[in-house]
């Protein structure tokens, strides 16, 4: 049905063009390295309207015959103004020159000229790689996810937590795309670093609401990370030597202006440095991570271009030669851009993505335990953009994903006896069709509307269990099982996902934007630990687990405070309700459990909040302040007496400030400050003893009944640019800079968790058992670091 709708829309748009119209289109690139520029504003002065380039730097505008002034603007680049006479279709690719170095300033929002106020997008944040590189970070390493956490509505439960939370959603409710490949665990080293190598990242966009119809599959957000294509003009090597890891990236043309590549790699060496002090590391132990990112592209001709990108990363924890645990993602993306005609753009993407972990314990082959788990998928995704006219841009396409879940391939060997505790694989197919249109109704009103239909099938082979009803909150009994044959459908679901957003211009400097979207999520991240961690398993919707649904409403006010658009202010409200949210029975067994679904509970959620954001975009001093007040709750039968309770990542107040200041030509300083309300946790009220063991007890059966102390932290970093000219007065070919950073400047012991336990000492018979509460800070001190970065 959706497909015929698409065709109808396309045909209609052909029929509607009675007037003599021509199209101007092309690709906008960075003149210095040939990278396609995403989000460049192409503005037609005569009609006071325009467009922006898409993810591949492509734009297309169709106008009546005539002469037009076209303005190409992109922050950090010198604008280009062209006068064109449209008497036939015109191909107009443009290369923009970067502004001189000293004028380059850190700007979060790329679209300075067509700023947030005039943009239809809301609930969206862009992060420039320059910003990421200037933000003071742990161990001085630029990191995408940690910079992201400085934006409104984005939070984390603390150091040591993998992933991030958006508007009160869980870590598993974010879709993280690296060149369109889903990344199932975005963290290295338990969240201290993210898997994205900043040297290879071009553009980052986070959708928190008003999510376009072409995206789907998660409830809370979409993080779309695009990789660099590689310099198509000249060879370039960038790298850095830091206290935790080193990086090296090489990029250059394969065929000048036709094909280019980039290879970027990182490897941590904390274990190498620590080896003399830690015996475990001398006996074959390891603690490290590494990743390799590569991309290449070939510009076949004006109408065709192909891209191939891949990522491979791994974290390794080993406590001797044979025992340990490792995890990592690998992705591969093949894309083909094709221009059917001046206005119909196609991108076809094929993706392979895999996340897996493996544990091994035991000293020899006769006594050991091994366990592997993985999720992998293949995606086929054709996406069409039809640039109907200067007022309408139609997007339609499909998204087909085939998943294989391997919950556990596990084996225990005892004295040579092998016990296999492998759990059946799960096979799923998620298919979506979408159509969406961006429409500029008038100068004051813009709309974006679309519809996505998603289907999910769970099919055999496999054994499927059914569970009986019982008191909410305790393990459900297995009442039946059924063996399904290969390809036999076990469960299937289908959902319509309407998306709608609008912008009303309120004077020249302000606008009001609103949106509604429904999101559906068929994959569930199973995690009941304090924070998400690498062992969390993904589980598909099944006969027992229904897909998660979310309905989100947003309303925002955006304003440029000054005529030069230097200062911007926005406030946005969001309200989201969710269904089929997963929680866990007490004592749930989530790992290697074929009856896992008997331990899952289902409930509803709601989260709401207000996000304030003020930014100074340029000048020697720039930066932003963001403040979010929000709440995120669940209501699940069997938890907290069936009443609403706060989620583990609920934060009432969330304040962040980031500032960047150029001291002089060579020195600059940046600082960020974070304050968040303490996250909820559960405290006991009472204690009792069973067989000599002290057990905590909460007489009110509460969940998350108290809050931990507030979290706050200040980080500062100084950056020293290397000399630009040699002693003999000639300009240096190479550039370099030093970063000196201080993380947690005033050494606050921010709590990660508070836990209750009996004393570690053996209590003599007849004596009371001492009890205590312990507050754990993952990073309880100031962490200074230095890194050296270069480019030649």
């Amino acid at each position, binding site marked *: 049905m959706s497909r015929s709708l698409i065709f109808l829309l396309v045909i209609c748009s052909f029929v509607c063009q009675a007037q003599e119209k021509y199209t101007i289109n092309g690709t906008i690139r960075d003149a210095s390295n040939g990278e396609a520029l995403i989000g460049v504003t192409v503005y037609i002065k005569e009609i006071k309207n325009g467009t922006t380039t898409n993810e591949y730097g492509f734009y297309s505008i169709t106008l009546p015959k005539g002469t037009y002034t076209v303005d190409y603007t992109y922050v950090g680049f010198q604008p280009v103004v062209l006068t064109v006479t449209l008497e036939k279709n015109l191909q107009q690719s443009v290369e923009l020159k970067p502004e001189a170095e000293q004028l380059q300033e850190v700007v979060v929002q790329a679209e300075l000229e067509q700023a947030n106020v005039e943009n239809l997008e809301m609930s969206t944040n862009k992060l420039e790689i320059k910003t990421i590189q200037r933000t003071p970070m742990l161990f001085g390493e630029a990191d995408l996810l940690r910079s992201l956490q400085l934006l409104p509505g984005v939070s984390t439960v603390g150091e040591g937590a993998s992933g991030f939370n958006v508007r009160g959603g869980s870590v598993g409710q974010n879709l993280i795309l690296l060149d369109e490949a889903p990344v199932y665990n975005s963290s290295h080293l338990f969240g201290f670093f993210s898997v994205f190598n900043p040297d290879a990242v071009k553009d980052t966009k986070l959708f928190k609401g008003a999510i376009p119809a072409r995206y789907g599959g998660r409830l809370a957000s979409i993080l779309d990370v695009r990789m660099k294509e590689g310099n198509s003009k000249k060879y370039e090597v960038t790298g850095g030597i830091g206290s935790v890891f080193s990086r090296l990236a090489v990029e250059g043309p394969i065929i000048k202006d036709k094909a280019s590549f980039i290879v970027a790699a990182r490897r941590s060496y904390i274990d190498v440095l620590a080896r003399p002090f830690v015996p475990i590391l001398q006996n074959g132990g390891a603690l490290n991570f590494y990743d390799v990112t590569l991309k290449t592209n070939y510009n076949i001709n004006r109408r065709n271009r192909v891209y191939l990108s891949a990522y491979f990363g791994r974290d390794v924890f080993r406590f001797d030669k044979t025992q340990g645990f490792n995890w990592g993602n690998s992705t591969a993306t093949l894309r083909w851009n094709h221009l059917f005609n001046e206005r119909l753009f196609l991108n076809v993407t094929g993706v392979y993505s895999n996340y897996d972990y493996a544990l091994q314990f035991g000293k020899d082959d006769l006594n050991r335990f091994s366990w592997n788990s993985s999720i992998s998928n293949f995606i086929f995704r054709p996406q069409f953009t039809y640039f109907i006219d200067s007022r309408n841009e139609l997007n339609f396409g499909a998204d087909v994903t085939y998943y294989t879940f391997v919950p556990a391939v596990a084996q225990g060997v005892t004295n040579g006896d092998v016990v296999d*505790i492998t759990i059946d694989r799960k096979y799923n197919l998620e298919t979506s069709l979408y159509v969406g249109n961006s429409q500029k109704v008038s100068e004051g009103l813009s709309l974006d509307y679309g519809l996505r239909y998603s289907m999910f099938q769970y099919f055999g082979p496999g054994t499927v269990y059914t569970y009986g009803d019982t008191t909410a909150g*305790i393990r459900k009994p297995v009442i039946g099982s059924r063996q399904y044959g290969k390809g036999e459908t076990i469960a299937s679901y289908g959902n319509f996902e309407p998306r709608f957003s609008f912008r009303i211009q309120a004077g020249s400097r302000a606008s009001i934007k609103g949106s509604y979207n429904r999101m559906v999520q068929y994959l569930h991240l199973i995690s009941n630990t304090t924070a998400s961690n690498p062992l969390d398993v993904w589980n598909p919707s099944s006969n027992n687990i229904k897909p998660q649904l979310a309905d989100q409403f947003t309303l925002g006010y955006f304003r440029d405070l000054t005529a030069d658009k230097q200062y911007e202010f926005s406030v946005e409200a969001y309200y989201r309700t969710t269904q089929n949210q997963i929680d866990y029975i007490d*004592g749930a*067994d989530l790992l*290697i459990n074929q009856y896992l679904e008997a331990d899952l509970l289902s409930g509803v959620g709601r989260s709401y909040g207000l996000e304030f954001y003020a930014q100074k975009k340029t000048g020697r001093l720039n930066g932003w302040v963001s403040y979010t007040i929000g709440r995120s709750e669940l209501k699940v039968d069997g938890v907290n007496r069936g009443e609403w309770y706060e989620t583990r990542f609920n934060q009432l107040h969330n304040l962040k400030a980031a500032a960047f200041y150029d001291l002089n030509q060579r020195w600059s300083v940046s600082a960020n400050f974070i304050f968040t309300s303490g996250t909820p946790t559960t405290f006991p009220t*009472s204690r009792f003893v*069973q067989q000599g063991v002290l057990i905590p007890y909460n007489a009110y059966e509460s969940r998350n009944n108290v809050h931990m102390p507030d979290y706050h932290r200040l980080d500062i970093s100084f950056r020293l640019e290397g000399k630009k000219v040699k002693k003999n007065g000639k300009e240096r070919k190479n550039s370099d800079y030093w970063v000196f950073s201080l993380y947690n400047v005033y050494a606050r012991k921010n709590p990660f968790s508070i836990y209750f336990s009996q004393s570690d000492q053996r209590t003599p018979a007849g004596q009371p058992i001492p009890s205590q509460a312990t507050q754990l800070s993952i*990073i309880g001190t100031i962490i200074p670091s230095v890194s050296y970065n270069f480019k030649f």
Partner: protein
Amino acid sequence: MKIRNQLLAFFLVSGILVSCEEVINPSLQQANPVLVVDAWITNQPATQQIIITRTQPYFEAMLPSGVSGAVVTVVENGGKTFVFTENPTKPGYYEWTPAGADTLKVGEAYALLINTGGETYQAQSFMGRVPVIDSLSFDKDTNIATGDPITRAEFWATDPVGVGDAYWIRSFKNGVPLLKPSEINIAFDAGVSIGGPTDGVIFIAPVRRRINADDRDANDRLISPIKNGDSIQVQIHSVTVAAFTFLNEVSIQTNRPGGFAELFATPLANVSTNITNTNPNGTKAVGFFNTAAVSAAGKRYTE
């Protein structure tokens, strides 16, 4: 699956990452005391004990006060009733000594009945079978974290064929019971979790070796669990599946070594109970009733 325990051990030994812990004194919500029943009885001919107390504020470092004057009986499915009488010197301690061959029996179901303060509480249990312990052995190893030589004990026994046997393996070093939360050793069939196909085989290595004392020195380094002259005694107690679940929950809630293991910790939650008030609107109780068959073996280590 108690992979968690392995992970905890893993992070304890790695100790590479720096974290910071401090003991704090948070104020806790007040709550009314609740009846606590500690009723783990066995088929042994020795005096059997059921302890009835009340919950205390979490930080109250006092022995819990016993609940006196309760009527405590255990009823065998066949109709036999065993009356537990309060020890006059120990309030809240209710005792029964089997007369002759009148011990509790494998394969029988038992009910616990408690009358106290005008309320009646009851609980059900079943005495499951227990395998004999074939032998105990000692092996020398190196502490992964420190490189120190250590000696550990290991027991050898085979789970009988038939899914659904559950055990609590309790051990004693030089006669002292090992009761730290990190020493709780439970098995479902020969493995560590319900749902793992480990029926009818020798207990898996983590179960066999978890009979050792977990003692650490001032620098938090594991002390060799066995030294020359030490004795170790191991008892396998059969438990019901409900009791296995309870003990698993107790282990999760109480075994908190801290540090990076906290990344894998689950939220604080109440452990289950099988003690119910016959009046659904009456006051609640916590604790557990289990009837265990016991097999035991001991050995002294001499170099």
